[in-house]
Every structure is written in structure tokens, then in C-alpha cells.
């Protein structure tokens, strides 16, 4: 029973890692860039929702607050691409890595100066509601997290697999020049995808905030989500979710049956093992070029 309980909590946590990882993967799918600020975008999204929704701040209803926060973060993501990322178009990937790390610090500073560094709690309608049955306690927040994540992953997968914009984004990432030649507006697609990943990050942030207090440093969770994206294979949406779930489940189980430090290391050990055995991740998308 205890084991099952751990698994359920782990799955809910894993969904959040998976959602942040989805943001990484979307940007990677569209532009082969890696946004190291994804965790901080999640943090900012949660704080924006908190700023709009909490009674002592703006006090709008929860649903409206989340939607507004998603819209704002869409604009932030779009703006980051338009103003900063586009400037380094054509530079090596490494430049984007450093740039987004720096952007993460800026986000953290912005959130810290507006909402302070003491942990705050987001007011949600499903706080503290639990279902009991057969010795298991399942929080409503956990169920919502799992449900929303599954729906979002499915929607995004369909977006990339079937819609015109999604296909255009994949084309842009696989061969930028060819995409230009056949008329894909690569720049506009990139902006759109950055915006979308900002919105997804907000959902992840709100779901994370349903489980406890948030402060500007929760963005460091992004590193773990990164491990999730790598385990799944960068560029694969279901892979990202699977990676997130693996990490989410392994962590509490390792924490229960092994020393604490080992539990903290476990996501990264799994990631290294995956990288060594299957360098492209579980859902590998790397193919060898024939010269």
C-alpha cells in the first residue's frame, strides 16, 4: 500500500517534470534551441497566476487568473523570442544556452523584486481535498495534475503531428534553409512556439503551486525537467512525459529505500545511464549522416 501511495505521488510530481520538459522539447522541435530558462518561465508563470488570483493581490477567480497568466506568459515567451533570441539567429547553439541561462537569472530577479523571496502559497479551489479508498489517499490536486498533463501532451502531440503550423515547425527545425525555400515563415513560427512554451510553462507552474509554496528559486526544478527531456529523447513529446514520469516515480521510491543523497542523485544517474546506453534518449531521433 505504502509503495502504491509513493507511486501515485510520484506520478503527479512526474507530470510536472514532464510538463516543463514539454516546454523544452517544443522549442527544441521547432528551432533545435534549448531554453535553459524554461524552469524560470514556469516559476514566473506561477507567480503571475498568484499575482492575479490571490485574494490579497488582484483577487480574480482562479480559472480566469490561470487563463490570464497563460496569456501573459505567452506574450513573455513571444517577446523573449522577438527581442532577444532572434538577435542571435545564426549563431551556434551554445550561444543560446548561455543566453537562456542569463535570461533565467533575469526572470528570477524580476519575480524576486515583485513578489519577494519568501515562499508564497497560491490559492486554488482544490487545495486540501482528498479521496480515500482502500488505505490510499489521493489528493484532488494530484488527479488534476495527471489529467491536465495527459490532455496537454495529447493536444501538443496532435498539434505537431497534424496541424499545418506544427508541421511547419518540424520542417523549420530539420532544415531551416529548405523550410525557407518552400515558404515556411521560420521566424514567425519560432516566436509562436516560444509563446506556446511560455503558456505550457505557466500550466506547469500553477500545477506545481497547487502542491505547496513557491519562491523565485523553484525554477531550479528546470534542471530535473531537463533530465526528463533527455531521458525521453529531446524532440519527442511523449518521450518527455515518459522521462518526467520515470524521474517522478524513481525519486520518492529511492528516497524511501535508499539514503537521501542517493535519492537526490537518482534522476541524474538515470539520465547518465540513458545517455551512455542510448545517446539519443529512449525515443531517439538521431540518425547517422552518410558522408
Amino acid at each position, binding site marked *: 500500500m505504502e509503495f502504491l501511495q509513493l507511486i501515485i505521488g510520484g506520478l503527479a510530481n512526474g507530470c510536472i517534470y514532464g510538463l516543463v520538459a514539454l516546454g523544452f522539447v517544443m522549442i527544441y522541435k521547432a528551432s533545435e534551441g534549448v531554453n535553459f530558462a524554461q524552469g524560470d518561465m514556469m516559476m514566473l508563470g506561477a507567480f503571475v497566476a498568484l499575482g492575479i488570483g490571490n485574494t490579497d493581490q488582484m483577487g480574480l477567480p482562479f480559472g480566469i487568473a490561470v487563463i490570464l497568466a497563460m496569456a501573459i506568459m505567452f506574450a513573455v515567451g513571444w517577446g523573449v523570442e522577438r527581442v532577444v533570441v532572434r538577435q542571435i539567429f545564426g549563431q551556434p547553439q551554445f550561444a543560446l544556452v548561455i543566453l537562456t541561462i542569463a535570461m533565467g537569472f533575469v526572470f528570477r530577479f524580476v519575480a524576486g523584486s515583485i513578489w519577494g523571496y519568501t515562499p508564497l502559497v497560491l490559492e486554488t479551489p482544490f487545495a486540501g481535498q482528498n479521496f480515500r479508498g482502500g488505505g490510499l489517499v489521493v489528493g484532488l490536486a494530484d488527479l488534476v495534475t495527471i489529467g491536465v498533463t495527459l490532455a496537454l501532451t495529447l493536444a501538443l502531440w496532435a498539434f505537431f503531428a497534424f496541424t499545418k503550423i506544427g508541421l511547419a515547425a518540424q520542417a523549420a527545425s530539420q532544415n531551416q534553409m529548405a523550410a525557407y525555400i518552400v515558404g515556411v515563415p521560420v521566424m514567425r513560427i519560432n516566436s509562436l512556439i516560444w509563446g506556446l512554451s511560455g503558456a505550457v510553462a505557466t500550466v506547469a507552474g500553477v500545477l506545481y503551486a497547487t502542491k505547496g509554496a513557491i519562491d523565485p528559486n523553484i525554477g531550479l526544478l528546470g534542471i530535473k525537467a531537463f533530465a526528463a527531456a533527455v531521458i525521453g529523447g529531446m*524532440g519527442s513529446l511523449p518521450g518527455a512525459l515518459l522521462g518526467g514520469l520515470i524521474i517522478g516515480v524513481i525519486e520518492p521510491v529511492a528516497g524511501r529505500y535508499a539514503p537521501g543523497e542517493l535519492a537526490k542523485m537518482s534522476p541524474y544517474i538515470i539520465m*547518465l545511464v540513458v545517455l551512455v546506453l542510448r545517446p539519443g534518449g529512449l525515443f531517439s531521433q538521431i540518425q547517422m549522416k552518410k558522408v
Partner: protein
Amino acid sequence: MRYVFKTTYDRDIDLHQHGWSRAKVAVLAGLMIVLPFLVGEYYLAEATNTLIWALAGMGLMIAVGHTGQVSLGHAAFLAIGAYANSALMNVGVPFLISFPLAGLITGLFGAVIAIPAVRMSGIYLAIATLAVFVIVEEMVILLEPITGGVGGIMAPSIQFFGISFDRYGALENFYWLCLAIVILVTWGYANLMRSPTGRSFLAVRDSEVSARALGINVTRTKSLAFGLSTGVTGLAGALMGHYIGFYNYELFSIFISINLLLVVTIGGLGFIQGAFLGAILITAVPQVIAILRDGLNANFGINLGSIPGLDTMIFAAILILFIIFEPAGLYGRWLKIRTWFDIFPLARRDMFRRQKSYLKTERMK
């Protein structure tokens, strides 16, 4: 404008293009040697710190600037160097042996990590080094008998040939020790870069496929470069441990890794000089901020000290501006200025125009 006539092969591969550049380096080295007589205790300590950062920056430069392997986890190698050196000295090994040994241990560790890591490229390597960093950080806490765990460890004071090199007792001596190590490493590094090994690093950076076609063993070259890089970083870590005196795992946080990346990027990727310029910047900016803060507080009553995290924010802003407007870093900018003066009336804007390239997917290797 200067014309250099090369009449022998030795002249062609010389470290310095002409005597003037050799003289400049000599003057700089001389100035650094007499620095303790020119400045006070406080600034001497800062200069020592800058030297240590430059050493660490050179370590990262081998990997990032000259072999194109991005590492986000070099703080881990600083930590390994520092703990290895302190632990060895605590069991009675003299500094002269423990110091190179610390570098060797770190280098071997780095090379072992590099063997699986070189199969990855670009972004995957960056992530793998990040994972290594987290694992090393937790290992430091777990290995309490060696590292002192959460409590920390004391770096014993250095003493050999009957002379004390203690950081607090004899700062001048410690400064000269650091300077000697930095000069030796810089000299070795500069010479490495004109040897076949160094040239093969550059070849691997610019194109793995062509490097392989030229008969370079890419895997071996990458592991060697990563091992050397981590070894030098380990040396810097050992010195950093002595500079701080008493430290625990928190000294080597992820922010140190990022600061190191900042050193090499802002300084100028692919230039040894870049590591020094970056190190100067990273140690000087907090001082400038502190001076500005005091000045603003005293003269205008603006209290910047009440804004937490302002330092990191300013670092981040500098980094963003550099990547957007001057990706070649400080040294790249200096090269442009120098060229402008060298060929005075003939310089044109487009001489240094960046060539834009279309993205090439990494999924097809």
C-alpha cells in the same frame, strides 16, 4: 602597419609574431611580479583571486573555446581539485606533490567521464556535465571522512623549503605562488595550441567530419582535451581552496559553473587572453558595484543594497548584451580595435561582419 618577414620555419611557428609582442608580454609579467610592492593588502588579495579565476577560465577555455565542448559542470572539477589537494595535505603530503596530484586526479576523473560523454555532442554534453556536477555535489556530502561533509574542510597552510605561503600570514608569497603557476600553465597552454595536439583540438571544434577525414582520432582528441581542461580546472580548484581557507560544498555551486562560462564567453571564446580578460571582469564587477552602491547611498540617498540579487542580475545583463552584440567577447573587440588602428585609413565596417549560417540539425550526425 607592420610587415613580418618569416625566413625560417621556427620563425613561422613562434609564439609571438614579432619582438614587440614578446616585449609586451615580458613587461606585463614583470609588472605582475612587482605588484605586491605597488598595491595594498586588499587589492593584492583581489589580484590573487583574479589569477585563480583566470586559471580556472583557462581550464574551461580548452574545452569550450578550443575544442567546442560546452561544459556546465566545471564547478564539480574545481571541487574535486580542491578536496583532493586538501585531503592529501591533511594526511601529510607536501604541497609540491599534492598540488600536481590534485590536478592529475581531476584530469583523470574528467577524462574517464569524457569517454562516454564524447559520444554526445553539443547540448547533450552540456546536460551530461550538469548531471555530473549534481552527482559530485552530493558525493561530497556523502564522503564525509574525506571532505568533511556539510561541515566543510580546512585547507592547511602551504609551506615548503622553509618558506610559508599561507594565504593570510604571507599573502605576497601566496600571490607569487599563484602567479608562477598561472604563468607556467599559460606558457604550456600557448605552446600546446601550436603543437599538433592543439591544432587537432581546433580541427575537431571546427568540423568533426573533416577532422576525422584528416586522420585525427576524434574520440581520443576530445577525451584528451576534456581531461586537460578538467586537470587545469582542478589546479585552480586547489588554489581556490587555499584562497578561501575553510570551505564546504557550497563554495562550488552551480553559479560558479555559470560564472566560469561567463569568464570564457565574455573574455572571448578561443583566445587564451580571453580567460584573463573575463577573469578580470568577473572579479572587478562586484567591486565596482560595491563602490557605486556606497557612492549612490552617500550622495543621493539611493539604497541599492536593499535590492537583493542585483549583482547576479547585472552579470546576467552583461552576458546577454555580450552574446547579442559582441559574441567574440572582449578580446574579439580588442582585435577589431587594433586592426582599425593597424590599417588606419582602410578599415571598413564589414570587415568583421558575422557570417550568418542556417541552422544545421544535430539529429543528423
